[in-house]
């Protein structure tokens, strides 16, 4: 790519040119340059295409009419969600300062590190309970508690640590799942955990801020992910979304398996689809009575 000084000058203004935000003379200069220079024309076109795609993507988010109803109701009785908080803010601030001084640094660290996010996670998860199917809630509560609200250190636990966290029965699941999750995602955690009296096998993958959880949990009597809509032709993968999270699920013998992620819907289903046969055959030979 050979760039002239004219190109360099034009490139500086291309974004503003695409937004028609330059003064008339500069608009004219850049317009003339773009007509003559194929490379800058391509770059301008890319900016315009990106603008359009971002516009469409964000606007495609459907807003339910209930939201409008909720706002109208709150306006008519003058309710604000955080009104109480704001009225008490000075007092609360004073109390916080007192607490911060009263507690030792270690305790404070501990408090801010655990209680804070957990409160928000609980609030979110509790609200979920009412609006998603039970089989979806089962996976979401694990993903939110274990993956989203986790402090990720620079270095994930060693493979040995993860193998021991998974236990002898599940350690061989690690390479099976690793193989099917996009390579850009790093394995951050592999462990067994419990929530709400339910036991989970949980692998967490992360690429910067994007997360993928692969979760397996024992099916209870009559439970099946098949109550969710089919996501592919075979009907093996069931999928739904909860807020910005995509959930794809399949029954694997005595287990239900889930992929919960920030991936686009199709990509999330693709991961689940790749996991169906290796995970089913692996989980098929695990004896669920002796899991934990």
């Amino acid at each position, binding site marked *: 790519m050979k760039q002239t000084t004219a190109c360099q000058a034009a490139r500086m203004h291309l974004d503003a040119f695409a937004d028609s935000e330059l003064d008339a003379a500069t608009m004219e200069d850049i317009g003339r340059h773009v007509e003559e220079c194929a490379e800058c024309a391509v770059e301008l076109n890319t900016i315009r295409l990106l603008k359009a*795609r971002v516009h469409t993507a*964000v606007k495609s988010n459907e807003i339910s009419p209930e*939201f*409008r109803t*909720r*706002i109208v109701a709150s306006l008519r009785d003058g309710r604000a969600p955080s009104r109480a908080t704001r009225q008490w803010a000075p007092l609360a601030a004073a109390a916080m300062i007192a607490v911060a001084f009263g507690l030792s640094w270690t305790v404070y660290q501990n408090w801010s590190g655990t209680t804070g996010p957990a409160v928000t996670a609980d609030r979110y998860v509790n*609200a979920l309970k009412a609006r998603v199917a039970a089989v979806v809630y089962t996976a979401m509560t694990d993903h939110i508690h274990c993956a989203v609200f986790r402090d990720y250190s620079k270095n994930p636990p060693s493979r040995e640590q993860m193998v021991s966290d998974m236990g002898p029965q599940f350690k061989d699941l690690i390479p099976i799942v690793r193989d099917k999750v996009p390579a850009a995602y790093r394995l951050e955690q592999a462990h067994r955990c419990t929530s709400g009296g339910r036991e989970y096998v949980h692998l967490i993958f992360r690429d910067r801020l994007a997360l993928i959880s692969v979760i397996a949990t024992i099916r209870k009597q009559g439970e099946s992910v098949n109550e969710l809509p089919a996501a592919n032709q075979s009907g093996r993968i069931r999928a739904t979304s909860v807020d910005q999270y995509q959930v794809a699920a399949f029954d694997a013998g005595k287990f239900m398996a889930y992929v919960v992620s920030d991936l686009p819907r199709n990509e999330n289903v693709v991961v689940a689809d790749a996991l169906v046969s290796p995970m089913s055959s692996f989980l098929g030979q695990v004896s669920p009575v002796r899991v934990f």
Partner: protein
Amino acid sequence: MQNRSVVHQAFWTWPAAREAKAAVDRRENVEEFERAALPHLNDLLRTAIHLSGDRSRAEDAVQETCVQALRSMDRFTHGTNMRAWLFGILFNVVRHQRRKSFRFRLFGDSEDDRQDQIAAAPVLPDRLTDGSILSALDRIPQNFREVVLLVDVEEFSYKEAAEIIGVPVGTVMSRLSRGRAALRTELADIAKAWGIGTRAMEGGRS
């Protein structure tokens, strides 16, 4: 005796009448506000979702925005841009929310670490879904995402965006260029992870 009764009556009816009048005034205010503000509700919520990274917090933020806006309607200058005014309040509310509580997800805020990407912004891969555009948008730093949302999605001018965020116009320009470059980098990464637009994996993953 009669006199006292009148005084008594006056004493009790006066606050009631005042309340009644206030209620009527408020209903009229609310109706006027609804006519002006509700058409922008969905745009406010879509923006809030990408600012706070969580739908229920975004809904709270928009509700708080509407209530605050209604309360300070008297400070709104008629004939000026209602939409920009509402977005300005929304940005304040979200900033307050972010300061007040733990972030739902941590987004990087630094502007410096992306500077070198401007010159090397990759071409836009084809076959990208709306979903990948959205996840790329949510991965770029908050400062950049704000201007992209205001200018590219909500079609505000640079001057309006600057007023909404509370920064100079020059800052909007530079954040926008860097934001778009960062988006392209994220999109290229996503495309690469899924083999979109690369010769080796034309057929996609299976």
